[in-house]
């Protein structure tokens, strides 16, 4: 498992730091996606999760998969989600909230 002696190595700490930041981002965005009651917010959080996962791939030396993740997930699926969310609302703009 984890060798405690590694913790004194700055390179390991850098890796661990990058990983933890990305992990927190991914998990946080996922949780927000599930919990958010506003559909558009949920979709935007999901895009954030996708982008963080893409960064994770790049940090794993899989930059091609990362770029494909951005291209397909954010560029295509994300926009598809946004369209679906907007098309399944009652109105395009919340009329009653106009001042």
């Amino acid at each position, binding site marked *: *498992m*984890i060798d405690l002696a590694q913790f004194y190595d700055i390179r*390991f700490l850098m*890796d*661990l730091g990058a*990983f933890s930041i990305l*992990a927190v981002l*991914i*998990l946080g965005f*996922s*949780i927000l*996606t*599930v919990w958010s009651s506003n*559909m558009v917010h*949920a*979709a935007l959080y*999901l895009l954030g*999760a*996708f982008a963080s*996962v893409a960064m*994770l*791939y790049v940090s*794993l*030396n*899989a930059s*091609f*998969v990362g770029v*494909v*993740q951005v291209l*397909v*997930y954010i560029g*295509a*699926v994300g926009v*598809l*989600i946004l*369209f*679906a*969310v907007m*098309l*399944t609302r009652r109105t395009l703009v919340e009329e009653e909230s106009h001042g």
Partner: protein
Amino acid sequence: MVPLVLYVLLASTMFVIGLYGLLTQRNGIKLMMCVEILLNSAIINLVAFSAYLPNVNGQVFALFAIALAAAEAGVGFAIMIALYRLYGTIELDNINALRW
């Protein structure tokens, strides 16, 4: 390098979050989003294992999975929009034509 177990933990946590959403949410679009989270957690595993084994098979599988996920999303959202046109809602509790 960070131990592999952390990646597996991350992926499984993400999977659990997605599964939780899938079981509790009743909005069709939200369900699709949770499915996307599930797929992403699976792909994280593939890429992480391929980085720790010295080969790229996992990445190739990941690319396949991404392409499949995109196709799935296209079909899924098309169905959701069709349901919305038919029923005027995407709350799945109200869409019960296939339950009878």
